[in-house]
């Protein structure tokens, strides 16, 4: 039995770990990866102390910092269920069972899925959630970007330099995102914007070869070899049913990072904290660890 288990090793989880280590708490970190969403950012220019740092570099710095304390860390492990029974938090992962007196949920967010037939089948076979990573593989091909927020507009603008034809598929009647980005997208000859359009099926053989779309009540097939899904993020909070969440599925926390269940704390993008920023997630992680320390002292 640990005093604390931290779920996640993004900015919130890592910072919580550093504070927990320095307070001498006996803890374990369970995480799918190190760095979380921060590792996916190409350029970070608003993390104090760094005028410019790339996501992978910052993730490496985070890892070096936490490893300095010689902590117990389980990577490539996913939490499936979290429950509190008789004052003990029990965790089920894809690899085992754990118990702790307290837990900090810092599991962040993940890409929202379309939930249409063909999506799972063709993931990484022409369908991707990371234009920055996989975009260059679609050189000279026709591609579709699904979404209309900043990340979708950014993906479309990256792809015009690589792909032949870029379709931007927007379920609403107008594009979202920043005005500057919108203007660039609307002015680009290589981008065809399809508003009021819904993707219904991802088509393909071994790899993607098209999408079925629905507009003005009519279904048609668009021939594309690449599909970039950029429809926002959802919190990784599905493994806990008991703690209170808001409509978006974010875990509700108070100013001390306490959730609706005593002994269960949460920090960073998985929570309903107003802004999602690396520096805010890090700060929330430190607050959560200090709250846990206080809790452990009071509940000896």
């Amino acid at each position, binding site marked *: 039995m640990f005093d604390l288990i931290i779920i996640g090793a993004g900015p919130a989880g890592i910072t919580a770990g550093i504070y927990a280590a320095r307070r001498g708490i006996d803890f374990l970190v369970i995480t799918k990866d190190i760095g979380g969403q921060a*590792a996916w950012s190409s350029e970070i220019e608003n993390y104090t102390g760094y005028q410019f740092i790339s996501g992978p570099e910052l993730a*490496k710095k985070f890892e070096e910092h936490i490893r300095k304390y010689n902590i117990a860390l389980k990577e490539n492990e996913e939490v499936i269920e979290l429950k509190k029974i008789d004052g003990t938090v029990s965790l089920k992962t894809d690899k085992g069972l754990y118990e702790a007196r307290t837990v900090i949920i810092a599991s962040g967010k993940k890409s929202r899925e379309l939930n249409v037939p063909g999506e799972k089948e063709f993931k*990484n076979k022409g369908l991707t959630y990371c234009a920055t990573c996989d975009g260059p593989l679609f050189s000279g091909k026709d591609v579709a970007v699904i979404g209309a927020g900043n990340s979708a507009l950014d993906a479309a603008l990256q792809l015009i330099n690589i792909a032949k034809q870029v379709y931007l598929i927007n379920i609403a009647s107008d594009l979202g995102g920043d005005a500057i980005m919108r203007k660039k997208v609307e002015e680009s000859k290589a981008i065809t914007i399809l508003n009021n359009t819904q993707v219904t099926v991802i088509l393909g053989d071994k790899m993607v070869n098209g999408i079925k779309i629905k507009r003005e009540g009519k279904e048609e097939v668009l021939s594309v070899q690449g599909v970039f899904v950029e429809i926002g993020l959802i919190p990784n909070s599905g493994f806990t049913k008991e703690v209170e969440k808001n409509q978006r599925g974010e875990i509700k926390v108070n100013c001390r990072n306490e959730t609706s269940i005593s002994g269960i704390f949460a920090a960073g993008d998985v929570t309903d904290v107003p802004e999602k920023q690396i520096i805010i997630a890090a700060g929330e992680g430190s607050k959560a660890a200090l709250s846990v320390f206080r809790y452990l002292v009071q509940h000896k």
Partner: protein
Amino acid sequence: MAKQVKVYSTSTCPFCIRAKQFLKDNNIIFEDIDVAGNQAAAEEMIKISGQMGVPVLDIEGEIIIGFDKEKIKENLGI
């Protein structure tokens, strides 16, 4: 004799950067194949891995998709 390691990647992909950094930190010599703008290399990668996501590591025929640290360690004995 050190194993022959190939890394298929793009310069913009965060996990490619981390995978290559991990190999460097462990003094593993590898061939860095940038599949962006190199259609032949991209097709080779798709053929051997059956998918289009980067990074892909080829450790003497053993194909590892993504930055899977445990599998890389296991295959290289580090």
